[in-house]
C-alpha cells in the first residue's frame, strides 16, 4: 500500500529509494524499510503503531512528540527515521512495565497533571530525562526542564507538582546504599 514504511518481508522491492534501518524501540529490536524523508514521529505512529507519541505543531515547539533517544529527550517530528538507525528509542508505551506504572505516571494522575492528555506523553518523557540526571530537582529546575513542552490545559502548576511527586517516590525507592550516600552528601 504505502512505500513510506513497511515491515521487511523477503524479496520485497520498491522503485522508491528506501533505507533499511534497525532500531531498538521500547527495548525491542525493529527492522524496517523506510523512505529517507520519513519522520521518526511518523515511523513510530503509523509504522510501528505506537500512537502515544503525538504530533502537535510540526515545528519542534510543542514537544508533544518528545521521545527519549538514547536516553535524551528529542522531538521526533523533527528527526528523520533513518537517524534512528542503530539507536534506542523510548516512547510513552515503554514507560510502564507490565506490572506497574512508572512513578511519573502515578504522579501525573495523583497530582492532576493532565487534562486533555495530548501533551502528557511528551511531558512525562522530558520529566524522565530530568529525573535521571537530577533526582531531586527544585521547582525552577522542573519548570526549566519542561520548557520545551507546551500544555494548553493545566497551567503547568500541577505538572510541576506531578514531577516533584515522582521525584520523591523515585528517591524513596532508590537502593538503600544509594539513598544513604545521598543523605551523607547532604549532611
Amino acid at each position, binding site marked *: *500500500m*504505502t*512505500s*513510506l514504511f513497511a515491515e521487511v518481508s523477503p524479496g520485497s522491492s520498491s522503485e522508491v529509494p528506501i533505507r533499511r534501518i534497525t532500531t531498538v524501540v521500547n527495548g525491542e529490536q525493529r527492522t524496517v524499510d523506510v*523512505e529517507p*524523508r*520519513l519522520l521518526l514521529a511518523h515511523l513510530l*505512529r*503509523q509504522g510501528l503503531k*505506537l*500512537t*502515544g*507519541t*503525538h*504530533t*502537535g*505543531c*510540526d*515545528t519542534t*515547539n*510543542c514537544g*508533544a512528540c518528545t521521545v527519549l533517544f538514547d536516553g535524551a529527550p528529542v522531538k521526533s517530528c523533527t528527526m528523520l527515521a533513518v537517524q534512528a538507525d542503530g539507536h534506542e528509542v523510548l*516512547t*510513552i*508505551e515503554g*514507560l*510502564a512495565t507490565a506490572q506497574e*506504572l512508572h512513578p511519573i*505516571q502515578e504522579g*501525573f*494522575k*495523583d497530582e*492532576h497533571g*493532565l*487534562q*486533555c*492528555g*495530548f*501533551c*502528557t*506523553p511528551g511531558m*512525562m518523557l522530558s520529566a524522565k530525562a530530568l529525573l535521571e540526571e537530577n533526582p531531586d530537582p527544585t521547582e525552577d529546575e*522542573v*519548570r*526549566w526542564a*519542561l*520548557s*520545551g*513542552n*507546551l*500544555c*494548553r*490545559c*493545566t*497551567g*503547568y*502548576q*500541577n*505538572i*510541576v507538582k506531578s514531577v516533584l511527586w515522582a521525584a520523591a517516590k523515585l528517591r524513596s525507592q532508590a537502593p538503600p546504599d544509594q539513598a544513604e550516600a545521598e543523605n551523607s552528601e547532604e549532611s
Partner: protein
Amino acid sequence: MTVDEIKIGGLGASRRRVEDNRFIRGAGNYIDDISLPGMLHMEVVRSPLAHARIKSIDVRGAYAIPGVRLVLTGELLASRNLAWMPTLSYDTQAVLATDKVRFQGQEVACVVADDPYIAKDACEAIIVDYEPLPAIVNAEQSMAADAPIIRDDKENQHDNVVFDWEVGDKESTDRAFAQADLVSEMDLHYPRSHPSPIETCGSIADYDRSTKKLTVYLTSQAPHLHRAAIALVAELPEHMIRIVAPDLGGGFGNKVPVYPAYVVSILASILLERPVKWIEDKTGNLISTGFGRDVYLKGQMALRKDGRILGVRMHTVSDHGAFFSDAQPSKFKIGLMHSAFACYDIPDAHLTARGFYSNKAPGGVAYRCSFRVTEAMFFQERMVQGAADDLGMDQAEFRRVNLVRDDDFPHRTPFGFLTDSGQYGKCLDIGLEAVGYEDFLRQKEEAKKNGRLLGIGISTMTEPLGAGNSREYDILGVKMFDSAELRVHASGKALLRTGAKSQGQGHETTWAQIVAHELGIPAEDILVEEGDTDTAPFGMGTYASRSTPVAGAAVSMVARKIRAKARKLAAHLLEVSEEDVEWELGRFFVRSSPDRGVTIQECATAAYTNMPDGMEPGLENNAYYDPPNLTWPFACYIATVEVDPQTGVWDVLHMVAVDDCGVRINPMIVEGQIMGGLTEAYAMANMQFITFDDEGNCIGSNYMDYLLPTAWETPGFELHEVVTPCPHHPIGAKGIGECATVGGPAAFVNAVMDALKDTGVRNIDMPLLPDRVYEAITERHDVSGVPPVRTDP
C-alpha cells in the same frame, strides 16, 4: 449504615480521574490515532494571498503523481451544490473557493492520496493562477467608503458591514451622563488570538455504499450539532449519519465550528467509497480555523463624586474576517458582550456593536469563553480601573462601592440579564487579604524610592455561563438543552451517557460523581461515555462552560428519575407502601423501622428479577434539561507585578484567584480548570496574539510566531474558594471552566498599568510586550491597537 459520600467518590470528592488511566499510558484515542482499512489521506491547498480572484486552477501535475486518487476543487464542489455552506451565524462560507479567495489560508483545493506525504507532494504540484486584489486587514479599512467589497458573492451586500446592533436604553443613559460629576473614557482593543489546542482539527469520513451510512470521526466539541450541520450541508438524513468524537487534544472553542475540510473529506469518501482522513497541520489550524476576539471599544462611564457609577456606554467595532461564522447560539449579534458590568449596580447602560468583514480568517469562536464575554469583562475591568484612577479613588474601594450586594439578588444587570446569587464583597475581601493589599501598597511606595515599579491589579466579575434557556439561545433552530441517559444494570453498576463532550474537563470522572451523589452508587461503578451520536442522547456539546450547568443538571435529573422508580421497587421489596419509604444515600428504609432497608443495588436487581406486578421491568431512563437561566459564577483575580523600567519586561510577583462557582463536584478538577484559565489569561496579557501585515499575511501562523507560555514563564497561582450555590441548578453548581480566561487578563493589565500610573500612561493594549511597555514608560504615552509587524531593516 449510611454510605460515606466522599468515600464513594460523590459530590465534593477530589476523585482522581478515570480518563487518566489511558492518557498516562499513551493509550488515548485521538483522531490521528484512528486508522481504518483502506483509508486514504487528504491534504489541503490553501491560498497564499488574502484577497485575489482565481483565474484558473491546473490540477494535472497532481494527477501525474502516483498514488493520487482524487483532486477536489471549488468547481467540482459547485457541480454538487457544495461549494458554499451555511455558517452557524446565518451567513455563508466557501467550502472550496470558486470565485475569489478572501483570506490567507483559505481552502482552494484538496488532494486525496494513498498517504499524507504523497498528498502533500501533490498539493505542491497544483498551479493556481491568482489576480491579486487589495487586502482589507482591519475594520477601519473595511468601513472606508471606497473599500473593495469583500463579499461580492452576496447579492444584497454593498459594503463590508456584517451587522449593526444595539442594546440598552440610549435615552436613560444619556440622562445619567448629563447628571455625572465626571465622565471617564477608555478606548481599548482586545487583539485577535487563537484558541490553539495542541491537537489540530481533523476528520475521517467513512461512507459505506452498501448501507448508505456515513460515519465521521471528528474533532468535535459538539457531535450532535455537527451531525445536524452535516445533514444540512450533505443533504443526508441524520439517522444515516454517525458522528464519533474520539478523545480531543484540547478544544477551547476551536472545535465547535464546521470547517470546510470536514465537508470535503465527506464528499471524497462518498466519491471514492473509501475512508478519507484529513489531519490539519498547525499552520492550517492557526491561519484558517476559528479565531477569537478582535474587538475595539470606545467606553464611557458616568460617575458621581462619591464613586457611584451612574451609567455606561460601550461602542464596539468587531472584525469578523471573510465570513460571519461566529460559533455562538445567542440571539444577540455580538454574543453576550452586554453581560458587561453584571456584577455592578448600575442603573443605565447603552451598547452599540458594529461588525465588519475583512480579509482575515473567518470565525469569532468563543475562545474559552461564553461568546464575547471575555471581551466584555476585560473592557469592564479596564474601564473600572480607569474610572477609579480618574476619581482618585482606591481601586478596591471603588469596586466595593459599586458591587451588587448579597441581599440585592435577584438583580437585573445594566443590560437586562438576571443574576441570581453571589457574595461579591466576601470574594473581594478574601482576595485582598490573601494578596496582602495594604502591605503591598506600602511596599509599592517604598520601592518607588528606589526606582522600582510595582503594581497591583484587580479584576472582579460575574459572567453568564451555561447557554442557555430556550427562549434566547439556539443553534440552527435547535434549543440549547442537554441530555443524559442512565442505565442501571441488575448488578447495580451503571452506564451513563450525555450529549456533552469532554476535551480535558474530566466528564468521565465528574458525571459519575453526580450519579454517586444522587444514588449512592460508588462512582467507580459508573461508566461514562460521550461523543458517539449513535449511542449518546441528543445534546448540544461542550463549550461556553455549559457542561456542568446543562448536561450536569441532566445527569442529576436522570438519576432522580431512576431513584423515583427504585423507591417503588424498595416499597415492593420491603412490603410497605411507598409513602412509608425513606431515602438516605444509597439506601431506602422503612420510616418506622430504620433498620429494615434495601440498598439501591438491591433495588436494581429487583428491577430485572423481582418487580411488582404491573411494573415495567428495567432501571433505565433519560433526561433532557432546559436551564431556566444561565449560571453566574463570580471571580476576584488579583495580580501584583514588578515592571523593569529598563526593559519593559514585567514579572508576576503574586497571583491570587478567588472563585465562587457554587457547589464544586470535584474540587481538584475545578482548581485545574482555574489554573489553566489563568495561564491563558496571562498569555493574552503577555504574549499571545495574531496580527497581519498590510497585505493580509498572517503573523502568528506557527508556534515560532504565535507565542504560548511555557512552564518557565508561567507564574504560580494561589487559589481560594467561596461557595454560593446556584439557586436553579439541581446540585447548586455553576460553570467554571472559563472564568479565569475571562476575568484574568484585566488583572494582569491593571497591575502593569498601576505600576506605570505615575508616568501618566493610562493604557497599553494587549499584549503588553516589553517593547510596548518600554515605549509607554519612555515616551509617556498610551500604546494602542495591534502591535505593528516589525521587520528587520
